[in-house]
């Protein structure tokens, strides 16, 4: 469950113009939302807020049944981040680590047993088509392979919320469709999914409610 009530976010505390202004919407547990809008509308900023990389300057934000404010204890914020899977536009992989080690990171940070980690990582990498590249360094992967690694890392720990920023940019069409099907399946299994994209063909292929941003304001809540 995600609920925003009059949420604003400023890059600097004293900045006069907020990047995001008075956002109010909610997404139920297991809901799927497209996040649409032109470049600079604030899609990435909103995803950063939902990933608890930033905290709201004003308003109230409730994520996975936890209120997120400046006063929320750090331990709570850490546990929240552990329950969120994020696919960044620039992938944010560890260049010196292998594909498998990159994907294993969220599980290792949650102290899962190493044999379980091995099984989970092998399965997810096989699913994204990287089963034969376990030990290849992330820095030596192509753009599409890096994107698939980032997607695998975002979902390997079965998060309650998946946030994806242009996750199909570097993927070919069949892979993009396969990814969408997986997001849809995860959503139907109870995972909340929010996908930011410019790709209208993709939106048409999977008709779901959309949140549309313009200049940091919500202009359409398709719920």
């Amino acid at each position, binding site marked *: 469950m995600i609920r925003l009530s009059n949420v604003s976010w400023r890059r600097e505390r004293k900045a006069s113009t907020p990047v995001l202004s008075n956002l109010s919407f909610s997404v139920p547990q297991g809901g799927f939302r497209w996040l649409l809008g032109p470049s600079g509308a604030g899609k990435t900023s909103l995803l950063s807020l939902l*990933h608890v*990389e930033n905290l709201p300057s004003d308003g109230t934000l409730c994520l996975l049944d936890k209120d997120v404010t400046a006063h929320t204890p750090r331990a709570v*914020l*850490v546990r929240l*981040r552990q329950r969120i899977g994020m696919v960044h536009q620039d992938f944010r992989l*560890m*260049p*010196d680590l292998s594909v498998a080690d990159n994907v294993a*990171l969220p599980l290792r940070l*949650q102290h899962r047993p190493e044999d379980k980690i091995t099984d989970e990582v092998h399965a997810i990498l096989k699913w994204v088509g990287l089963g034969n590249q376990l030990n290849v360094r992330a820095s030596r992967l192509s753009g599409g392979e890096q994107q698939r690694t980032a997607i695998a890392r975002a979902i390997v720990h079965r998060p309650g919320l998946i946030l994806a920023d242009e996750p199909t940019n570097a993927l070919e069409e069949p892979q993009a469709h396969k990814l969408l099907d997986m997001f849809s399946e995860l959503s139907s299994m109870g995972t909340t999914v929010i996908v930011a994209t410019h790709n209208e063909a993709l939106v048409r292929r999977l008709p779901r409610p959309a949140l549309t941003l313009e200049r940091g304001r919500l202009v359409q809540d398709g719920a």
Partner: protein
Amino acid sequence: MEPKPWPFPFRPKDGLSLSEALPDRSLFILVAMMSFLAALTLTGATGARTLSTRWAGGAAQLLTIQVSEPDQPLSGASKSDKTASQSRAEIVQADLATLPAGTQVHRLTQEELARLLTPWLGDAGKTALPLPAVIEVRLAEGHEAPADLEQTLNAHVPGTVVEHNAEWSSRLRALAESLMACAALALVTVGGIATMITALATRAGLSTRRDIIEILHGLGATDSYIAGRFASRTGGLALGGGLLGTLLAMAPLLLLFRMAAPFAASTLQAATPAMPDWRTLPDLLPGDMLAGLAALPCVAAFIGWTTTQIMVRIWLRRMP
């Protein structure tokens, strides 16, 4: 191609690559140098304290009495006088026998006297100079020499000199305490410099790994995890540097202790100008000094670990 076995069990797999972000050389060498200085300072302080204790405990109770022309009879004594048959030194010794019970009086033998004078006069046994008798008086614990002892002795045997070691011992003790205070200040300074060096190295490491830390933070790494990874690295380097610095300091320390050993004697009888044999030297080293030296690498590691923990945690506070 068949993939290699995975996972590799003994390699950190979080991408921080701290061996590159916090390279071995600079921090390791600087901590080694700091530990070297600290070891020398610590030894100086221990040496000063040992000497102070000995002077305070032993030498303060000592009186040294010199009797010139010791074997001559007292001039001007009549034949009926009972001292007429005694030498000047014997008369002084007889007077000293009246000191409080428990007082030990010992006239240094010619051999003991020669041994004491050898560093200054060479083979003192062959010198043509007339040597006085030297009488060492050790007062019982808690007793003081009579204030008029020198007058009394001079009245019987003119020209007798009484040296009160207590006066010198209090001055030397004050000097030793000043040295110890300076050493403590030096140790605090060395600790402060080590802290600053570690803080600077940590800050440099954090700025080179900023992106990686942000990724780990986003994946749900706790502050303890990130701070612990950095602190383990700096703590390990500081431990290694501390060990090297302390070991390197041992050579000059042993040399210094060997040279200082003759001055540590609390009595004239025990004093010897000869330096102790290298093999017996470890037995002469104070236990608390050895314990202090052994603790130095651990203290260096503790400073490195704690400083890094604090620095990283403060740095992480920028992120929610």
